[in-house]
């Protein structure tokens, strides 16, 4: 433990700013991935282990678009849509067949897709680390806040992330389609009776979830390098967030993603040994005391 350096950081506004910005970056990207996972889990009732692989595909799509077209804005549109299409294929042809079955089959099926996607990436993009260079639009001098230096791109991510959080929340709670999704989560049969094509709703929820994972990956691409197999770490992190936040609960997911980011960025100063351990410990405690999640479930 190193409480000293944590206290030291709290005494310095510059250090606090840097760590806060880091926490927000982690939280925003994690939220995008985890919100997709939580939607799929809350509405379809399937824990999609392949969600991390969809994130990985998003990162590699971004890489390819950047390599051949070189426009980051375009990459942020093409890559998520590509991942969304992948999600539609996944849902329509495979995952649809295991709805309502024992969770064991769902775990296995989605896990099998991790293996498949990892090898596809190895075959197409190779086994080595790849990274996307910072797009020219963001190559600006860093901004100085409270005596600390914050790269311009970080602020961009935080801004876009905040807009997306509000946008997703608005879409799910205020629009008609969002209400249909809510209804599909609580009573699909009733929804069918009032004449709504529930399988189509399921497919679009899966596509939306995949799209969000792809978007998170696209935004993270200039910051994090990509390797085949990166999906394992991504899915387990977002899975923890989803379970603690409550399955299907978007605002809960955002809250826990923030907590996760703070624990990571500040925890690494104070408890460099166990910053991740605390998060899993929290997951254990939540599961034992409130299995439906810290903020309850299925209230979008």
């Amino acid at each position, binding site marked *: 433990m190193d409480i000293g350096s944590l206290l030291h950081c709290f005494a310095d506004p510059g250090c606090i700013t840097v760590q806060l910005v880091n926490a927000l970056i982690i939280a925003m990207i994690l939220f995008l991935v985890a919100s997709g996972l939580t939607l799929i889990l809350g509405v379809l009732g399937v824990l999609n282990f392949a969600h991390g692989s969809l994130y990985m595909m998003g990162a590699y799509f971004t890489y390819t678009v950047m390599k051949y077209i070189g426009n980051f804005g375009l990459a942020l549109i093409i890559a998520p849509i590509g991942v969304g299409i992948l999600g539609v294929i996944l849902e329509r042809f*495979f995952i649809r067949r295991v709805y309502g079955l024992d*969770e*064991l089959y769902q775990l296995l*099926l989605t896990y099998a897709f991790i293996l498949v996607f990892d090898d596809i990436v190895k075959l197409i993009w190779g086994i080595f680390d790849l990274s996307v260079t910072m797009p020219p639009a963001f190559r600006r001098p860093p901004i100085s806040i409270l005596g600390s230096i914050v790269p311009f791109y970080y602020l961009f991510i935080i801004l876009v992330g905040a807009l997306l959080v509000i946008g997703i929340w608005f879409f799910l709670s205020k629009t008609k389609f969002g209400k249909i999704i809510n209804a599909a989560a609580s009573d699909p049969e009733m929804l069918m009776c009032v004449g709504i094509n529930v399988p189509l709703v399921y497919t679009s929820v899966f596509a939306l979830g995949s799209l969000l994972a792809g978007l998170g990956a696209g935004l993270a691409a200039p910051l994090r390098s990509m390797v085949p197999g990166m999906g394992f770490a991504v899915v387990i992190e977002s899975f923890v967030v989803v379970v603690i936040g409550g399955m299907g609960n978007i605002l809960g997911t955002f809250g826990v993603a923030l907590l996760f980011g703070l624990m990571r960025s500040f925890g690494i100063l104070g408890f460099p040994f166990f910053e991740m351990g605390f998060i899993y410990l929290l997951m254990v405690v939540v*599961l034992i005391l409130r*299995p439906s999640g810290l903020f309850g479930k299925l209230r979008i």
Partner: protein
Amino acid sequence: MKLFRLLRSNSWLLFLTALLAIVPLLFPSLAFVNIVSEMLIMAIFAVSLNLLIGYTGLVSFGHSAFFAIGSYTVGIMLQKFSSSLPLALPLSLFCGMVLSGIIALVIGFFCTRLTAIYFAFLTLAFSQIIYTVIIKWEKLTGGDQGLVGGIPKPAVQLLGLSIKMTSPFNLYFLIVVLAIVSFFILKILTDSPFGWTLRSIRDNSERMNFLGINVRKYQMIIFVISGLFTGLAGGLMALHLSGAYPDHAHWTKSAEPIFMIMVGGIRVFAGPILGAIIVTQLSAYVSKYIGVWGLIFGGFLIVYLMISREGILDVLTSKRRRLRKAKF
């Protein structure tokens, strides 16, 4: 007399033992010994996990925790005390089992309060805690690198004989003996009234509760037994690899035996063993000659889940049962 009857009804186990013992004596090949060792270790792992998944209906997705506790206990004990303790090797295996059992008792105490998917989540969370501890406790476990530098394997003194464990063939026979003994014990367990109670809990736990069976107690007992034997598998893996790695605790390690169970058969005792044989063999040959193991195995699993969802032995035994019924 009873033992004789047990042996007769489990003749396939005797056959397996004979095969495993004779083949390396006739054709002493190191490659064979290596791959069969790994196969048997994974088979112990899969069989003990299937006590939960197949027999009790509890999907544990965190069994890598016990596997890692077994392997690290054996590795650390042998690295520290191999020269100072008599019988260090069997003692370390025993300690690995017991420690896994104790941790399983603690984890099982909490997990059995939950059902269905929450049980899987909680076991996964616990195994991630163990994984983090292993990664971060560098002084004891070597962190990311794992226990490097090899694990000493002191000779075992048995009936005045000193058996050198550094020989891969002797280690192989130790693994064979322990695997067969474990299979035998667990087979007897699953055929006992206790085993049938577990099956009834799987099929209808509410009714078992009405009948006055303490469901949670049974679930905890089987969780601990499963943890014990998974710890044994982990300990043997440490000996086999001469090292313990954080990989052993990673959640992907929990998925491997589940694959084996699903492929081999979930409702038949020998199913996970057959699954372990198929998966390890396929993995060895495909990665050696083709190289895209994940694509082929993942694709195979997907097709299999789309078509049948029953393990090989499940299909065979249900067909046999159907034929038997048809005769009457």
